[in-house]
């Protein structure tokens, strides 16, 4: 999988290229906006990581221009953590928005989720023996019905859409609760713990794996 990184901080870029390489991603690095757009239009990338403030064409304009031609997933990296900046980024055509400084694991998890995003929305999801009916709002595991509260259902739905991939706490807060700030309490942990309880009750295998200090991964249990 090839990634394009448009970032003018060479030290950060170098470290990201190396770390993505460790994760078997080939990353092409460009340090200004104009070259970035040319490269993005020319190449075939799984995802584009773009800093909002790069020399030449800025990130927002770049993504707007790119969107006229291609739908390659784009994730913004930015120090502009303003409340409106995120909205601007997403409106310009970005698919995700990550504020600097960030943990590499956070970026990696988002890139992974993004590069395998399925465009169509099926009415049923399945992860191993867990099946979810999005219309009927029901969940079955090995044919046994599991009742969930609305927020637990949404939490599981997001994890099932990203089965076998790490989802970070931040991603869960943003996508399940639409929360864009850091809570001071263990909101995610408490909900995951309850979901885990309902999902695993009566089954030997824990379907939700905790990835220490990063987030969770739903494994497809057989």
């Amino acid at each position: 999988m090839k990634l394009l990184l448009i970032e003018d901080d060479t030290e950060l870029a170098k470290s990201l290229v190396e770390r993505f390489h460790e994760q078997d991603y080939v990353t092409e690095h460009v340090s200004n906006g104009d070259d970035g757009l040319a490269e993005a239009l020319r190449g075939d990338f799984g995802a584009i990581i773009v800093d909002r403030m790069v020399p030449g064409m800025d990130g927002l304009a770049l993504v707007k221009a790119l969107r006229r031609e291609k739908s390659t997933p784009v994730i913004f990296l930015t120090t502009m953590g303003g409340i409106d900046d995120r909205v601007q980024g997403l409106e310009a055509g970005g698919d995700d928005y990550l504020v600097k400084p960030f943990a590499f694991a956070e970026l990696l998890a988002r890139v992974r989720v993004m590069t395998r995003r399925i465009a169509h929305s099926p009415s049923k999801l399945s992860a191993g023996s867990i099946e979810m009916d999005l219309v009927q709002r029901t969940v079955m595991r090995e044919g046994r019905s599991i009742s969930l509260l609305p927020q637990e259902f949404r939490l599981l739905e997001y994890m099932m859409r990203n089965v076998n991939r790490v989802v970070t706490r931040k991603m869960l807060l943003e996508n399940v609760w639409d929360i864009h700030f850091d809570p001071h309490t263990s909101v995610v942990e408490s909900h995951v713990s309850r979901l885990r309880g309902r999902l695993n009750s009566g089954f030997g295998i824990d379907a939700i794996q905790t990835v220490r200090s990063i987030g969770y991964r739903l494994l497809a249990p057989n």
Partner: protein
Amino acid sequence: MPFKPCAVSDTDCLRPTRILKSDVFRFAALFAFLFLAFTGILLGTVLWIVQETQRAALMSANDADIATVANGFLDEGIPEAVEVVKQRLGSPALSRPLRPDFYMAIENEQGQQLAGNLPQLPRTIGIFTTRFGQSVILGRGVEVTKGVYLFVGRDTAQLTATRARILRAFFWVVLGAIVIAVVGGLFLGVRFMRRIDAIAATCKGIIAGRWDERIPLLGREDEWDRLAGAINEMLNRISALLENLRQVSSDVAHDLRTPLTRMRNRLEEARAKSTSISEYSAAVDTAIDDTDQLLAMFSALLRISQVEAGARLSSFSLVSLTDVLENIYQMYQPVAEDYQHSLISNCQKDISIRGDAELLTQMFSNLVENAIRHTPEHTRIQIVLKSDGKLVTASIIDDGPGIGSSEHEKVLRRFYRVSSSRSAAGHGLGLALVAAIAQLHHAKLTLSNANPGLRVDTTLRSDWQR
């Protein structure tokens, strides 16, 4: 109004040249000029009317005399006309006229004077003026019959005297107007400049760093007082913001120093004492945690300042407060359970206000989280939402230990932490953000004792900015 000496400072001084340059003085001068021009026109008209009336009266007397002479001629010919002239002039023997303001003369075809008190006549027909000695005579010349010339005229001394009187009056009026304009202009100019100088002096004081200076009010409640009041209010606001900024900078400097020092000590200790990879990585993990805490503090500060700057006002829309609070309830219910608390929601349905859903969510999240984190186990926390039509009140009430009344105001400040919670994790910015969001929504935030516990009420106007 006395002039102040020009010694103290530039603004206190009232030099005459400054007054002459002042706008008010120029305005007064322009006004005086217009007044004079108007007075001139008025007096000119009066003068003209009076003089015309006097001339008309004079001429009608002349014409009456001419008519008498003409009647004499018609009745009995020239000798009778001459006789009438003589009668009108009094005695024919007198060489000097009996009445010095009345002149009459009749001449035959040869230019020989038959009767009269004027030596020489120009034999002009019609109305004209002629001089005789010191007198200016206005009269009419007619031909009584072919070649016989009659002149009747009267002295215009009265006309001249009246004109002189009117012009004299005009002179005094003009003089008075000029004096009033100059004195009034100076008075207004001085008064105007006094006030301007008071404002300028305050501005200079503030430029010089004396932030507590304010423009003195005269208590007259005139436009000056209103202006001064508005400027003072603005200065108060700016001072408060500056003070706030100063406070924040020093707080940031102080509050950053503590975690940075701690981090540095830990790293130094790790380098000096750690012997294994696991010890090193433990030290690095702690350092990462410390940095995260610092970053969280920064983003909280940034968010507060963004909210305070009001940048989000443009994104206000109709928000269902019921939904916001219900979501918060569902979100924090499991968390509260983990803390061994009970979280109860009692929200009236369908309550909407204008606002920013994301910020409102953060505001009530912060309040609920505070109640969860800073109370002992088995605390009952209630989320209550109710509306009386005009006012919407959202309350977060706990029955924990509460905080002292003296601290109800203080906890809303940045970095302020009640003594009992100093050891708990957090940066003391949560309630400052709550206060900023409440202010953005024009909401009243009230902390009170729930006996026992703390009650935080957020009162919003449901029709605000609709």
